[in-house]
């Protein structure tokens, strides 16, 4: 047998050979930018060079025919260069203003929405789901497609108080990350254990150690070493499932969706924040998830109507208070909204500041 080929450990490729020449030429020497219309950025370099960026939404999971269709548009209308954003939008750069409109038309004709800039609802950052993940409670790609259909007008317009970053996640690991709105799986029942398989598939001490509330312990069932869960302690987080697939956490009925708001990565104005629970118990209703979509739209309407210019979702709520948020959205407030994790008392109102 031939000697296998040894890899070239080349690491992260140099972007310069692939970068639009105007960006390469003015690298590190940009002067200012503005947004002529939703979906278009206009950057001016210190040299006086200008570049227009047209941003379009994609389905993220792309077949090669879609990628080639985008390449055809880039070759014909955008000088053969593109880049992707962290939210899976595609950006086409052009060096002349009069190239912008034909490019937008070509994208729209090809079924790609132009938008996602400024104070819009950008593409939902998400993960793999049932298509490819080994532990998913839902199909993020489907949730995202359904929601983006509903939020299409908010993607192609800039009419929110500030940018809105939405995320979805198919389990509580939360690969989608923090968001102004996050739509995440929330399991509500402990794992169902296949005791026949545990000792064959799982490194039991590692699984015991993985549990954040020490609810898992070794056990013998039918003469076989296995694991058992103290169901009173279990918080149904699903952390045991990845290292031990026979501890099935996903359930067609009891794996629900929960919605969280006010997450923010930027340090712009306020400090970065984690998103907070506002709604749960939402059915994992494939293929269109209408109940989740309705709550998201309801939250967006309240934010759009009530927040001041440049307030992100969490900043708006900080100003008007949580009582006002729940009043405006009509969402029920329950004991499950109270933080119970360590340090949770810090989330209580330790002041005489009250909203009526």
């Amino acid at each position: 047998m031939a000697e296998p080929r040894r890899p070239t450990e080349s690491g992260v490729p140099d972007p310069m050979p692939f970068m639009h020449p105007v960006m390469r030429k003015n690298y590190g020497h940009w002067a200012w930018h503005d947004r002529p219309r939703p979906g278009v950025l206009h950057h001016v370099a210190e040299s006086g060079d200008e570049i227009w960026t047209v941003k379009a939404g994609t389905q993220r999971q792309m077949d090669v025919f879609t990628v080639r269709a985008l390449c055809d548009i880039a070759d014909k209308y955008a000088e053969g260069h593109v880049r992707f954003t962290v939210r899976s939008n595609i950006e086409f750069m052009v060096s002349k203003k009069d190239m912008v409109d034909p490019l937008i038309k070509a994208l729209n004709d090809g079924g790609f929405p132009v938008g996602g800039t400024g104070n819009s609802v950008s593409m939902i950052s998400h993960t793999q789901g049932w298509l490819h993940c080994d532990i998913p409670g839902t199909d993020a790609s489907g949730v995202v497609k359904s929601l983006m259909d509903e939020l299409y007008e908010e993607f192609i317009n800039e009419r929110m108080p500030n940018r809105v970053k939405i995320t979805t996640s198919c389990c509580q690991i939360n690969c989608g990350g923090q968001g102004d709105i996050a739509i995440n799986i929330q399991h509500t029942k402990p794992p169902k254990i296949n005791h026949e398989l545990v000792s064959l598939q799982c490194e039991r001490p590692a699984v015991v150690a993985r549990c954040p509330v020490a609810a898992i312990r070794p056990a013998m069932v039918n003469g076989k070493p296995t694991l058992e869960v103290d169901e009173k302690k279990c918080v149904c987080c699903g952390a045991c499932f990845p290292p031990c697939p026979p501890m099935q956490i996903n359930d067609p009925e009891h794996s629900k969706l929960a919605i969280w708001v006010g997450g923010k990565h930027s340090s712009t104005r306020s400090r970065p924040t984690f998103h907070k629970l506002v709604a749960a118990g939402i059915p994992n209703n494939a293929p269109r998830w209408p109940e989740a979509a309705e709550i998201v739209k309801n939250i967006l309407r309240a934010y759009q109507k009530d927040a001041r210019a440049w307030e992100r979702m969490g900043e708006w709520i900080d100003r008007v208070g949580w009582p006002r948020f729940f009043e405006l959205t009509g969402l029920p407030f329950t004991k499950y909204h109270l933080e119970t994790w360590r340090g949770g008392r810090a989330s209580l109102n330790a002041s005489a500041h009250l909203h009526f």
Partner: protein
Amino acid sequence: MAKQMPKTPLLDQLETGPWPSFVTGLKRLAKSDKGYADMMKDLLGQLEHSYETRKGYWKGGTVGVFGYGAGVIPRFSEVADKYPESKEFHTIRIMPPAGMHYTTDLLRKLCDIWERHGSGLIAFHGQSGDIMFQGSTTDNIQPAFDELNELGFDLGGAGAGVRTSVSCVGAARCEQSCYDEAKAMRMSLNAMVDDIHRPSLPYKFKMKFAGCANDCANAIHRADMAIIGTWKDDMQVDQKAFQQIVKERGRKEIIDQVIRMCPTEALSLNDDDTLEVDNKSCVRCMHCLNVCTKALKPGKERGAAILVGGKRTLKIGDQMGTVVVPFMKLENDEDYEGLVELARNMLDFFAENALEHERTGEMIERIGLSNFLEGVGLELDLNMIAAPRSNSYVRMDGWDEEVKKWNARSKSAAE
């Protein structure tokens, strides 16, 4: 006889509506005359089955390429008896060019490779920052990687190792960029390829690079080590351009949306519509620069702050990264090498001191920030805290020694 397209009444409902549909793309692959068409038919069948039963049917395993211990995500179907053609559907994680720039020529080459050896399905990009080449058989992984590798691409991270990184568009197109994000990212990651490809850390280690406090790379919460651009001197104000903005938008809008929204009340509008900035109070948050882009810019003494310990819930709860270096000048090669060395020190300290399945933030929570700083060779700084302690239960018999250290440092800084 050719394999039939599966019936997919649930997935079909995801083909309606204005947003581009991934289902339509999957069907294009399944209906094509390519070698992967039957695999994609069964993949659609299995996905429809997931939509019917609301459960996933993939399990992991061990698949890789010669010489590496990570970077391929193996997927074996648990329902292969019903959908045999997609019984193996592995993903290859490939690190994209920093900043995710592509020529169409490059994208077409990537597509061609994935048509030869995979399913024709590619995600640009995964949340890890990788190009996800989704869907290949065990036998096809090596030839697919060989071709990608020959084209200049390398596997990304997975498991308990250094992970693929992300940098914002930064210096390539943004006037707010405070350092060369792509250079910092490539130099750091490419000095750690061994820990990317042969993971043997306590758990994952992620770095992300953002050019300013807007943090378009989502670094502060999603990276063990976040490199976030900032500046040390005064912000740059073009007063004429600012006056023009006031003229265009009106004083009320400027007062409501710029002056009053400054988190540290560092701004004041002068009678002649110029801007007064109290740069000592400014925290470099970016708000006024964002909304007055032509008039306001970062200062000229640029570099980055380094924050460590960001992570999601498992196991002790969410953590944001916190400051461990308030300002690192990033101008010449030596500065960038200093960043790489610091990253290396942090990685080594993490490798030696973290417990199994513990992230950097959890380790610091357990051992305390001062032990971490000592371990990686960093000096204490007031920018590292939101506030000093409020709990008096602490043993302080080393106080005088620490005061001497502080005074000596303050004196040498003043000289």
